[in-house]
């Protein structure tokens, strides 16, 4: 029932999309962290108006399925860009719009909500005395954040960022809806030709598992490295 040579064939086929998947997920992770960081700062410093807007956005992004968000972005985004392009008077052909961009933008925004929670937790782990010490030495707020708070917070945040990275990698399987081929999509394509679903899904599971194990080792090593110093 289970043909191992087909399994290995699928496995090596799936490996070819791994770099692309990893890269895409990394880009989304980084963008998500940047957006999430900004949302956290808005929330922490209670910047008027923006603070309320951010709260509603965060709740919506967290509360609705990614699939739905992706779908709305797929139709909404070209129209939105078209609208702004019209305002700014430059040409934009929505028919040439690459769905990968839709995926990157909608995923980054969606996951920024979760990153924001992680970053908030990490900031909470930095004691306020550290910030006062920097202020008393004449650091500006930005200098304090960049040189003192972030290096300390990142240690706490790192394991959670790895979790997010794994979640993003897995969630990219939804992006096949708009033709972006990731690991699971590749598995489906492999089985579409040979009708061997069991083998291809098993191969996909193996690839995911392998990736997770490797990433965990890499992250843990890095975390121990920086934790030693604190």
């Amino acid at each position, binding site marked *: 029932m289970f043909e191992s040579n087909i399994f290995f064939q699928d496995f090596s086929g799936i490996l070819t999309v791994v770099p692309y998947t990893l890269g895409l997920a990394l880009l989304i992770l980084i963008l998500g962290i940047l957006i999430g960081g900004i949302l956290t700062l808005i929330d922490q*410093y209670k910047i008027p108006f923006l603070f309320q807007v951010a709260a509603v956005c965060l709740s919506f992004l967290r509360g*609705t399925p990614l699939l*739905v968000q992706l779908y709305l972005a797929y139709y909404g985004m070209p129209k939105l860009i078209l609208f702004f392009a019209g305002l700014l008077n430059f040409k934009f052909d929505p028919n040439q719009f690459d769905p990968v961009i839709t995926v990157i933008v909608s995923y980054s925004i969606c996951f920024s909500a*979760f990153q924001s929670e992680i970053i908030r937790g990490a900031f909470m782990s930095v004691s*306020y005395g550290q910030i006062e010490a920097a202020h008393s030495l004449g650091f500006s707020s930005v200098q304090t954040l960049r040189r003192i708070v972030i290096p300390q917070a990142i240690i706490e945040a790192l394991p959670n960022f790895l979790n997010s990275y794994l979640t993003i990698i*897995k969630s990219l399987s939804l992006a096949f809806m708009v033709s972006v081929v990731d690991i699971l999509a590749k598995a489906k394509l492999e089985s579409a030709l040979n009708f061997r679903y069991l083998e291809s899904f098993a191969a996909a*599971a193996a690839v995911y*598992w392998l990736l997770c194990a490797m990433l965990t080792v890499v992250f843990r090593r890095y975390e121990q490295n920086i934790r030693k110093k604190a």
Partner: protein
Amino acid sequence: MKMDFGYMIKILPGFISVLPLTLVVILCSGLFGFLLSVLVTGIRIKRVKIFSPLMELYISFTRSTPILLQMLLVYYGLPVVLSLIGININNWSGTLFAIATLVLHNGAFLSEILRPAYLAVDEGQKEAADSLGFTSFQKLTRIVFPQVLPVALPGLGNALIYLIQDTSILFIIGVVDIMGTANNLISNDFGSRQIDVFLTVALIYWAISYMADKFIKYFERKTARYHLENGLTR
């Protein structure tokens, strides 16, 4: 993107009617998943021989594979495995399989939240209980667990939100839940009003998640009185 509010209101009752099913699934899998994760965490912290490495394996697998795959594995694999030891679960309903998947998934996922929270509890607290003559079980339930909770709550909150969205795996095995109702609606007029359906779905999930957030925040407030905080501002 034109929105047809009249249509959205028309399809709402269909969603409301499957809401109890979804809520039951959330409740059962949340509760039993949590209990399983406590067990798993205990095994890992006590470093129980043989079981502890098995749990690590289970967690790394669950963390790394999409829940869709886990669903298929449980739905098709579990009956095969259990039939080997003479248990027949082929007459289980799809809902039970979905709950089983979610319980297994959350058992691993929550354990990764509980373990660091446990380690964050001050060693002195455990020693104080020891010195007063508490048994291990008394120490765990009366002292340690109430202190793990506030630390773990934000993570548990995130997990609950994920769980709510993960209930859509029900539809993979043909149980009609919110996502299933949506798919039926979309299929029945060949997708010409998919946007309206998805917007309705978004609103419903948002409402459930909002309530879940409130539920978690309630516990956060309750535990806040003995939970000291750091942070960017004060």
